[in-house]
């Protein structure tokens, strides 16, 4: 039982550290990249990787099923709405830019 708890703690430490690292890197990317379209990709590191890892780390520390479920609910909500708002932002910004020729591959 004790081994299990230590394992859980180590795993959640790793998740939270990786998540924090991804968040900071994504923010650096937003600051550092040139041009809107490149920044969009840096922001998506925050919205997918950092968010998932941090929420997963918190889930392991929850210790209560209801808190676990609420965290999972927040994660799922961000998982669905995050890319949706990025997509809306990209398609709104497309007006300033010429589209490529249509050749599907």
């Amino acid at each position, binding site marked *: 039982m004790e081994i299990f708890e230590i394992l859980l703690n180590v795993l959640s430490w790793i998740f939270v550290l990786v998540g924090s690292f991804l968040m900071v890197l994504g923010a650096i*990317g937003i600051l550092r990249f040139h041009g809107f379209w*490149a920044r969009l990709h840096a922001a998506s*590191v925050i919205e997918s990787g950092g968010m998932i890892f941090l929420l997963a780390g918190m889930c392991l520390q929850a210790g209560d099923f209801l808190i676990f479920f609420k965290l999972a609910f927040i994660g799922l909500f961000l998982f669905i709405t995050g*890319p949706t708002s*990025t*997509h809306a932002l990209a398609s709104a910004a497309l007006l300033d830019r010429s589209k*490529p020729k249509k050749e599907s*591959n």
Partner: protein
Amino acid sequence: MKNVILSFTILLGTWLLLSGVYKTLIIAFGLFSVILTIFFVRRMDKFDRYQVKFDIRFFKFIGYFIWLLGEIAKSNIQVIKTILQGDKNINQKMFYKKTTQASDIGKVIFANSITLTPGTISVSIEGGDILVHSLNFKETDLDGLSEMDKRITNIEVSK
């Protein structure tokens, strides 16, 4: 009718898991809330004449979800490398990708999966094609997208 029962179960389950207070009064309020929610959602379906059919196979979807998490991890590493190296030598490109999904929900899952994996962003859906913007374009990216496309077509309920 089947849809109503399914959404009733999902919403009531969500309520019970959110609430955590299992007194008779609160559960009665829960039932009332679920019924009110279904009333509004059905009204919305009726008036905008646009019904989304969530025709996906649940267990295959779970499998796809786990595969997607792996893809997100892989492409995160790629984008982190680019962030650390700076964006002097990157090769941004916008291109159309053909989709093979029949239903709206399939296309939306595909577009959102493209956006969720850092490095590629879906910009707009135009009929059967998705406009994709890629941060550091390589020819191998197209194979990855085709693989994703195939997996999503697989979780759709075939007509």
